[in-house]
């Protein structure tokens, strides 16, 4: 048996160039499989961790998924806003610990602008309950100040003290700018890996101020209010897009949810972020599975390559196998010799794949994080990934039985004189 191992090793070494190429193909495809699996997990985690510690998201009645989309992910727009008085009423509810009013609708060079108040920096949490922190500067204080997310700062090369102009609406072309009322960057948030990174934050009063001289979505002709004068106006918002709610006691969540739904003064709804996120993920998850299917196919192609390379080499090795037969190798030994080779290449390929991926993450991790906001850490395969790799190896083993079986048949048919 140990002799067969050595024989297989020597034989493989003799064909090291071809097998090396196969090894590389297997390594690349398993690295890809594992890489996609990592990205999948990372995206999923990032998705579910985009908000935490918030018990309810409240807004005008719409679908829970849509409310999450615009309140948390800043995707799409609200069809209806909720009144400021409703938001105030909610804040005074005895079960409520804090509220974060959110007002959306404007943008800056493609990045969404979120109007909120100081509660945002205090109570908004993400990930496993991390609070927002500023990497530079301070929260906005006076009206025309803004705090920008990490990605906004990085992409647009903004630093503290820069003056930026917001645009009305969410498109990126032909927009009307709020050019008369520029904002000063006073704070830059640390990276969170959530939509916060892509957001330009301003105060609710600022949102009100830049729209003072607007009516129906356009500047009013002939009316222009200079920034210095806005403070003379009442800058209390009339509406907000949504309100994030934290409760004193989480157990009260369904009671509060019902109260909001039953409130006759304004048609509102409250959703539990966890439930809505799950619902949303079911939509996004289809793409996720497609990714896995694609990487599975890459592995299958790699395996097919390995098997065909070994099968092709069999033709040249018939003489060799017959000689082994003549010195006492049983057809079973010949089978084992070939199957061992396939399995070894498979195993080595998968291990090399893990190494390659780890090296690639070391080298490219910061780049991926900066460019795509996907943070991938070089790490040993987690249990789910190990399972995936195990299945890959099992598939490889089954595949390598094929050349073994063919060799077995050949050596039975050839006997001592291959008919080549």
């Amino acid at each position, binding site marked *: 048996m140990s002799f067969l191992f050595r024989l297989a090793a020597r034989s493989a070494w003799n064909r090291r160039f071809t097998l090396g190429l196969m090894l590389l193909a297997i390594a690349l495809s398993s690295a890809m499989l594992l890489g996609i699996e990592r990205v999948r997990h990372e995206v999923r985690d990032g998705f579910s961790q985009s908000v935490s510690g918030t018990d309810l998201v409240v807004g005008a009645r719409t679908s829970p998924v849509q409310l999450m989309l615009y309140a948390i992910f800043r995707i799409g727009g609200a069809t209806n806003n909720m009144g400021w008085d409703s938001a105030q009423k909610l804040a005074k509810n005895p079960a409520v610990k804090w509220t974060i009013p959110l007002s959306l609708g404007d943008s800056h060079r493609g990045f969404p602008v979120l109007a909120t108040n100081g509660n945002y920096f205090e109570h908004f949490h993400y990930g496993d309950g991390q609070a927002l922190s500023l990497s530079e500067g301070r929260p906005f204080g006076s009206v025309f100040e803004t705090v920008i997310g990490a990605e906004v700062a990085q992409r647009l090369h903004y630093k503290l003290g820069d003056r930026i102009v917001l645009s009305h609406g969410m498109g990126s072309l032909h927009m009307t700018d709020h050019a008369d009322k520029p904002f000063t960057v006073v704070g830059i948030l640390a990276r969170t890996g959530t939509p916060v990174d892509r957001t330009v934050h301003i105060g609710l009063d600022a949102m009100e101020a830049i729209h003072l001289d607007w009516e129906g979505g356009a500047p009013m002709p002939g009316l222009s209010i200079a920034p210095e004068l806005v403070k003379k106006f009442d800058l209390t918002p009339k509406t907000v897009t949504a309100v994030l709610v934290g409760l004193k006691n989480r157990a009260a969540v369904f009671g509060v949810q019902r109260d909001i739904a039953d409130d006759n003064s304004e048609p509102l709804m409250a959703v539990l972020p966890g439930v809505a996120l799950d619902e949303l993920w079911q939509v996004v998850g289809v793409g996720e599975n497609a990714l896995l299917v694609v990487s599975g196919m890459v592995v299958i192609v790699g395996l097919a390559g390995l098997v065909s390379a070994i099968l092709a080499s069999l033709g040249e090795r018939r003489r060799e196998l017959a*000689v082994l037969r003549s010195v006492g190798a049983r057809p079973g030994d010949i089978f084992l010799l070939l199957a061992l080779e396939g399995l070894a290449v498979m195993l080595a390929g998968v291990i090399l794949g893990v190494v390659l991926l780890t090296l690639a993450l070391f080298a490219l991790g910061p780049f991926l994080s900066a460019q795509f906001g996907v943070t991938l850490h070089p790490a040993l395969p987690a249990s789910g990934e190990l399972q995936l790799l195990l299945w890959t190896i099992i598939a490889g083993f089954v595949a390598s039985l094929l050349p073994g079986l063919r060799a077995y048949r050949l050596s039975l048919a050839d*006997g001592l004189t291959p008919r080549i």
Partner: protein
Amino acid sequence: MSNAAIALRDISFTWPGQKTPTLALDQFDVQAHEQVFVSGPSGSGKSTLLALIGGIASPQSGSVAILGQALDGLPASKRDRFRVDHIGFIFQQFNLIPYLSILDNVLLPCQFSAYRRERALAQGQDLHAAAHSLLRSLDLAPNLWTRAVTQLSIGQQQRVAAARALIGRPEIVVADEPTSALDSDRQQAFLDLIQHECEQAGASLVFVSHDQRLAERFHRRIALNDINRCAGVEESA
């Protein structure tokens, strides 16, 4: 009968997928220590005869006895074991495993057969010594032993193959056209060596060749065309 190294009786053998038998003969015997020249052009059932002697194939009817042991009753794995224990093979060419050293090639039968290993050990202090002495007596100088198989000439390769067939002193050596790739001077020299070594080892030699010039050097000559009733029919093997 007890002295017969090889005894085939009333053989009829048909390869799977063939309609007519490839080999049909009443009797084929080789005695112990006997050196037999078997001549047969292609189509005479030569490969089939060797497959039967080697226990690779089993006849549909008739009996194959090697050293008194009936092969036809044995399961395939026992026949594989029996073959390596008692028979050394030399082929026409490409005898050697290219990725093994010359020494490892010679020692191959000892890896698959404990019997051959023990008998080789009885010849020298250790396996390497046994292989060395065989290689030396087959005119392969020590400076060749470390070379890659592919660096040897055909004649040298055939002599390494002979050493492999002879190591552990198998009772029977079967050579299938071992000289056809050699020029005529080399053929004679090779034949000298192998006949001498078989004598030394006390092995029977079955030498298959179509080259009648070599025939007179053997104790006995068998023309396969004469004894195989199916000779001339298109051979599949």
